[in-house]
């Protein structure tokens, strides 16, 4: 019969129309911004810099190695290395970024900077409401704007942040163990030097 297919299709739309009154998951519209869908844990928008402890400048994990700057496909990162060094989480003196800018109007949220970073210093944020009326200065984030605490990182990516912390703790423990072994060896060397005064003292560099 001509028109049978159309009627069949209309029955389908009628079913969907009526269904939206009874089934809650057919009502897919969300009244943003009053209502919000929770973001996924893996969601990524723009990068931020992680710092440990209360002070963002002192606790910044970034050591200004500039790998992310080099690997960034649209080249939206700009880093200036510091002249002096500050201790990192292990206590080793490291450089830090004197300037770290990300132009988020150029950034394409690809996450490659996160993947290549050997220091777990740069991670992806989930903040997406970043509209501004200034095309250049408003979308150019400096290191203070980029710095977010490790607690914040735990809040937005709990699983990933937990893994990162475990890895860093292991690194720290290994470094501490290594330092301990080195200290013991140095002490032993000093002792042997004391007991055998005839021998010349070990060079000063060996005690580090």
């Amino acid at each position: 019969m001509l028109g049978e297919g159309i009627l069949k299709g209309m029955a389908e739309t009628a079913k969907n129309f009526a269904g939206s009154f009874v089934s809650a998951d057919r009502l897919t519209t969300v009244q943003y911004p009053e209502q919000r869908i929770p973001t996924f844990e893996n969601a990524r928008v723009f990068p931020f810099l992680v710092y440990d402890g209360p002070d963002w400048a002192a606790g910044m994990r970034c050591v200004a190695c500039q790998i992310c700057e080099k690997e960034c496909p649209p080249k939206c990162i700009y880093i200036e290395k510091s002249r002096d060094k500050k201790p990192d989480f292990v206590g080793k003196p490291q450089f830090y970024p004197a300037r770290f800018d990300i132009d988020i109007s150029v950034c394409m949220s690809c996450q490659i900077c996160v993947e290549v970073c050997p220091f777990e210093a740069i991670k992806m944020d989930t903040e997406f409401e970043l509209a501004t009326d200034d095309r250049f200065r408003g979308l150019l984030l400096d290191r203070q704007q980029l710095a977010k605490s490790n607690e914040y990182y735990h809040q937005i990516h709990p699983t990933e942040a937990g893994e990162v912390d475990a890895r860093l703790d292991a690194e720290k423990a290994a470094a501490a163990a290594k330092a301990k072994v080195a200290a013991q060896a140095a002490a032993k060397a000093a002792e042997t030097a004391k007991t055998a005064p005839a021998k010349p003292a070990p060079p000063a560099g060996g005690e580090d």
Partner: protein
Amino acid sequence: MKTVEEIKAAIQAAVPGAGVEFVPNPSPCAQHSLRLTPGRAVEIARFLRDDPELAFDFCSNVTGVDWLDKETSEKVKVKRTVNKTVDGVEQAVEETVEETHKHVEPGYLEAVYHLYSMAKRHGPLVIRMRTVNRTDQVELPSLTPIWRGAEFQEREVFDLYGIVFKGHPDLRRILMWDGFKDYPMRKDYVDPDDYEYEPTAHDAVLKRAQAHQAAAEK
């Protein structure tokens, strides 16, 4: 599928006097290719398509490659006689001198075709043709009369590399606009200075920004 060498032999048997050169591919995937002399390429292509055993009826991919002039230098020891004053007397002395010879291998443009067979389900066979140079002799025969699928792709190669395909029915620019002059995919292409301000400029972009600023101030 026949090996690339066998296909080469088959081409030479079917199209006598056809210039076909085997080009090995050192990569592990071993997709070796055949370089055709442009003069008889259309005949060879027709043979590749119509031969019942080869039956390369599907021209998957057409593209261009730009090979710049290659400058190689080698050091050669040359013997020559030099007039020298030895022990206060001038005499001819034979001496070995090292000279650097510079060769410039002229660059060329290359068109690469990837052929498959839908009937026999084999492939790919890679065929390539090269132009004489990169400047004035950049003509190659079009294979669009054999494979219609090459139509837009040859137009694209013409647009971006500047290879002129003889026998192409509609050789116009395809991606760039009609009034555009240069060929953007060539390795020595310099993009125009329509520099856009970027707050995080560095390296090459920074250099360009500075050059742009200097030019703007003049």
